[in-house]
């Protein structure tokens, strides 16, 4: 029985016994899966790479689920309320081209190099220094991000359900810690697939009932135009200028900053998601997994963006920013998803919806923890601390690292509780590495002239430039007009342009240093660079089983959707 002290009097929704039963059942099931899979995580290949035996569907769903965190769901639903349908760009142009690029161009290299991680590829291609820079920054940031997300989720549970913040932090993190430490990546992947289904089962009813209440899509657009502006329902037509849309961004930032750099960086080099694909059982599955993920990713706006838009149209109250909401006792933009949940979902459905949010949080955290464990063990501990351990020793190290990673995350969560501004810094820090890392990896794969020192210096200078721009705007907010090239630019535009410039700095430095240093021989680069590597074939398959065919279908749907919502 739960102690009464874990509840506080103010809360957004009230759970019935059946809702509690659904949540408890969820926790019991994920722990059962962890214990069941314990016996199947005895070797390093099992624990860290799930035995490399995942089918395309399992790897694809896990790949998507690791990214589909609760904060992502609630945050982007809030952004849809705040900025309108423009938030969809983070799911379409900000994901689909990158996922298809990963599938068709980058995955064969990751896969045939048999690397355990993205830093592992950098070691093979550029040398130990690039791997060390990438691995240390990734491990450090991943575990901190996990803590930040944990705190944010506990805060959400406090606001929505009235749960004590310590209770939320410890129950959720210990559950994730147990099932990942027991079953390794396989357990994380199994649970992510389960969580994917629960997220959809719990969230899909909101747009269905919301559209029914609003009177369909056409009527919804009319309601939004009346309550906000016609700008809120156009995806591209308002992006000609920074001042012409609610987000304060233009098409250059969206196409090049988001589509060409940030999303490419995240979906192709962030080991948290790439690790799921590396666990695929063969090259065809490894290519199909991101394509399946892309097809499903295109549908995520149904359960994230549409509820935000529906909130704009049907909620009786006006939502506001986080600081304004706290001061005035109102609801913030980020509350839109729980508010819609409470609006339509009675007993049982409410429990499922809350379970979807918890599942989203836990899948994201498991992703962070399992990726951290692998990078720490294979890219930091083994090369720099103990290179002579047995396979059994590294598996044990992985289990302990999982526990330690969870504890450090919990520590970070409490640190954020004391100093809230840390959250902004950690989130900003994470973004510093993504864009330059993409520049380094993509040049390494596509350009054989790129040298080891160039990879290191390009990565370092790109990251330093990103930190420099962020600090500049922090110290002098008016500098945003220079970074984003417009006096009308707003916060999100800064992220896009900062990424674009840091990517260009990384590429420029890599090219210049490459021409000043000695290249590797072709023989050394075989298996690592396009043009010097026989790309493995998916086999002699009928056209409808080939990844290229399905990538074409996904790309076509992507184009059509963008035109429909232009």
């Amino acid at each position, binding site marked *: 029985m739960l102690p009464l002290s874990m509840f506080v009097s103010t809360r957004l929704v009230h759970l019935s016994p*059946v809702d509690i039963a659904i949540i408890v059942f969820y926790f019991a*099931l994920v722990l059962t899966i962890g214990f069941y899979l314990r016996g199947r995580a005895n070797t390093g290949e099992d624990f860290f790479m799930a035995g490399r035996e*995942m089918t395309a569907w399992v790897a694809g769903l896990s790949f998507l689920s690791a990214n589909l965190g609760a904060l992502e769901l609630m945050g982007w639903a809030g952004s849809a309320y705040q900025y309108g349908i423009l938030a969809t760009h983070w799911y379409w142009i900000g994901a689909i081209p990158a996922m298809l690029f990963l599938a068709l161009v980058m995955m064969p290299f990751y896969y045939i190099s048999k690397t355990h991680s993205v830093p592992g590829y950098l070691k093979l291609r550029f040398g130990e220094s690039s791997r060390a820079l990438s691995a240390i920054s990734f491990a450090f940031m991943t575990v901190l991000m996990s803590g930040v997300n944990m705190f944010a989720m506990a805060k959400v549970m406090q606001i929505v359900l009235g749960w004590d913040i310590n209770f939320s932090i410890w129950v959720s993190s210990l559950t994730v810690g147990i099932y990942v430490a027991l079953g390794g990546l396989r357990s994380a992947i199994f649970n992510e697939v389960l969580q994917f289904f*629960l997220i959809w089962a719990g969230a899909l009813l909101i747009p269905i009932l919301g559209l029914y*209440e609003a009177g369909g899509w056409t009527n919804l657009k009319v309601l939004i135009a009346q309550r906000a502006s016609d700008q809120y329902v156009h995806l591209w037509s308002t992006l000609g200028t920074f001042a012409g849309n609610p987000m304060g961004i233009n098409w250059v930032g969206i196409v090049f900053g988001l589509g060409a750099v940030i999303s490419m960086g995240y979906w192709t080099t962030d080991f948290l998601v790439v690790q799921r694909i590396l666990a695929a059982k063969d090259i065809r599955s490894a290519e199909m997994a991101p394509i399946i993920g892309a097809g499903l990713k295109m549908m995520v706006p149904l359960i994230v963006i549409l509820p935000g838009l529906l909130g704009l149209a049907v909620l009786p109250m006006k939502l506001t920013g986080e600081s304004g909401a706290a001061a005035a006792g109102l609801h913030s933009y980020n509350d839109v998803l729980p508010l819609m949940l*409470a*609006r339509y979902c009675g*007993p*049982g459905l409410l429990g499922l919806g809350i379970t979807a949010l918890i599942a989203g949080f836990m899948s994201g955290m498991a992703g962070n923890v399992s990726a951290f464990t692998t990078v720490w063990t294979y890219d930091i501990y083994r090369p720099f601390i103990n290179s002579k351990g047995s396979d059994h020793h590294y598996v044990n190290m992985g289990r302990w690292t999982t526990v330690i990673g969870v504890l450090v995350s919990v520590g970070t969560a409490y640190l954020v509780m004391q100093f809230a501004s840390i959250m902004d810094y950690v989130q900003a820090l994470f973004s510093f590495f993504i864009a330059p890392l993409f520049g380094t990896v993509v040049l390494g794969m596509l350009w054989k002239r790129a040298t080891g020192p160039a990879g290191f210096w390009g990565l370092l200078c790109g990251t330093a430039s990103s930190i420099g721009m962020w600090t500049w705007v922090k110290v002098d907010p008016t500098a945003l007009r220079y970074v984003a090239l417009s006096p009308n630019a707003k916060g999100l535009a800064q992220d896009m342009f900062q990424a674009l410039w840091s990517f260009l700095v990384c590429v420029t430095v890599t090219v210049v240093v490459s021409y000043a240093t000695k290249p590797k021989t072709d023989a050394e680069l075989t298996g690592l660079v396009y043009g010097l590597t026989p790309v493995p074939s998916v086999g002699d398959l009928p056209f409808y089983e080939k990844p290229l065919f399905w990538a074409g279908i996904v790309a076509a749907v992507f184009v059509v959707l963008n035109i429909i919502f232009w």
Partner: protein
Amino acid sequence: MRDEGGVSIWFFIGISLLVNGILITGAGVWEVFHPPENPVVLFHLHANVWWGAILLLIGLGYCLQFSPGRKKS
């Protein structure tokens, strides 16, 4: 994915959807006969009855298809 002699991930998903479906449908049917004082918006559609039933049927299908006792095809 089905391991040698093991339980498929899809079976676990089936169990999850089946149990949730039973609980949600049960709660919905109860509400049909005992309407709440403060019903949710669109209560008259009884979403928990039909949504729960959909989950239940999908879960049942997965459980049968991927049951550990069923021979691998």
